[in-house]
């Protein structure tokens, strides 16, 4: 266990649609940040990132993003990641519009 390690989630964009997705503990790609696996160990994070990056037919540009635990699951820390959970602020487009159909 790394001391002072900021927990992470693995996030990427879907290859075909471009949607922002998060890797879950049971190896799905979810549109919902709260369903992401919250990774609190640095070595495990690297393993999970490698696992994600290997899924070349599903996702593009996988990376680790800082996150924190919340009542309903992991929550983003940085505002950029918060925007990625929703979509743009000028229209009701992207996941904020699509997520209700998930």
């Amino acid at each position, binding site marked *: 266990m790394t001391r002072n390690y900021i927990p992470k989630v693995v996030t990427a*964009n879907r*290859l*075909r*649609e*471009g*949607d*922002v997705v998060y890797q879950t503990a049971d190896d799905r790609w979810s549109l919902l940040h709260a369903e992401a696996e919250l990774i609190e160990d640095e070595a495990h994070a690297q393993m999970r990132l490698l696992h994600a990056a290997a899924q*070349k*037919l599903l996702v*593009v*540009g996988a990376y680790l993003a800082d996150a924190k635990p919340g009542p309903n699951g992991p929550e983003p*820390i*940085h*505002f*950029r990641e918060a*925007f*990625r959970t929703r*979509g*743009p*602020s*000028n*229209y009701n*487009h*992207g*996941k904020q519009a699509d997520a209700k159909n998930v």
Partner: protein
Amino acid sequence: MYDYSDFDESFVRTRVAQFSDQVSRRLDGSLTEDEFRPLRLMNGLYLQLHAYMLRVAIPYGTINPRQMRQLAYIADTWDKGYGHFTTRQNIQFNWPKLPDVPAILSALADVEMHAIQTSGNCVRNVTADHFAGAAADEIEDPRPYAELLRQWSTDHPEFQFLPRKFKIAITGSPHDRAVTAAHDIGLRMTTRDGAPGFEVFVGGGLGRTPMIGHLVRDFLPVADLLPYVEAVLSVYNTLGRRDNKYKARIKITVFETGKEAITQMIEDRFAEVKPLFHGADQTLLTNIRAAFAQPDLVTKPTEAFDAFYKADPAFRAWADTNLSAHRQADHAIVTVSIKAHGETPGDATSHQMRVIADLAETFGYSELRISHEQNVILPHVHKSDLPAVHAALSLAGLGTANVGLLSDIIACPGMDYCALATARSIPVAQEIATHFEALKLEHEIGPLKIKISGCINACGHHHVGHIGILGLDRAGVENYQITLGGDGTERAAIGEKTGPGFAYDDIVPAIERILRAYLALRTHQEETFLDAFRRVGMAPFKAALYDGESAQDAA
């Protein structure tokens, strides 16, 4: 306008076929993302924050109604019913899905359009004065030269892997509406002994190291355009820094080499290159010129305009702000504002695109331009038709009378879309526009250019805004830096930083403090914000911005 030759047609169709195959191979796993990325970028396809984005070239901002309708069709069929006109006179679709992109490119090719060289380290879309071919102050229509440059630079084997991207802007008028001084090469038409030629500026650019272009040739005969531009590119291709992305633009090459030395190198290379041009370029230019022949402008009475102007205040307000002088006095240049208060700067719905296309056909000799200020231009409209044009535009939400005013804001997509952005720009633009609309101060303030970028790359041209706003990420929070006194015209200047930046919720009040200070200190109503800034300098605005703030903190 220029119609594709068989060569152009075949080139674009071949590229669509190639890229379609590349997309298939990416989707079936034959290509990795690392292999695919440069291929998709060569075809204008980016992966942004929430989705893919396709950037479609509108060469020198010239587009016809049929093409505009096809953009509307693409928006409805494969995107979310709108498109975003950019500061590079391009259009971006924000929501294409990768498997659909070949079909979109094919639909573009059907109307002689493409997304080639809208990304990558090559010569990008050549931009031009958006009043080209119509402006009263124009020496010559710059678009034939822009088209010559487009044909020359497209797939040019020597310049496909430049140290960095390369942008050329051209104007045919002494009043520079094309921000030529902020481009890698800026071409301003001038005359000597009655013959047309260009002043050539090299090494301008915004981004993290903003620079105004250096004059390297005060008169370039028009016949020498291609060999001279080729010489500039050639010198840059040799000297440009490939070791450091942030020092790779020609502005840094000019800065590090020195203006005199690089000017000499360009002239030496020009002397080598010039004899290799045997006149084929001039034959081509002659043919291209014919394609840009001026429309036969009608002559009819203009009383209808005068009557409406007197009787209808809404029309009068629009005519005062959105019309510009046409070279034929009974016509006008119409700037269609894509900046309705509270809407996203540069976003047009498919319906609006079709309305504009219809108006261009009915009243505008089927001509349209896209401006780098993210508006659409009807370059030739007879004055008697303006009331009908205004009425149709108003019905479609396109009748806003704000061109050149505070709410005619340039804003990059910012962190609402762009993967590079460090903060949002669009909501800042929306809030500034609605805030001052509510205060009814916009017309009182008068001519003002506010330009907003969501990162240091400066797609929103904030450095040359009279008021520039730059969105940054300061310790995980959006923070907005203000610059004042920038100018993108022939009097080009880089704006000066006011001081510490402002939080998202404080940026609109900060802009209001600046503008209230301006209203209080201007000598008379005709003294614009920029003129006032040049007269009084930064101090009164700094005081307005920061003195009140510390008093508030102390309270």
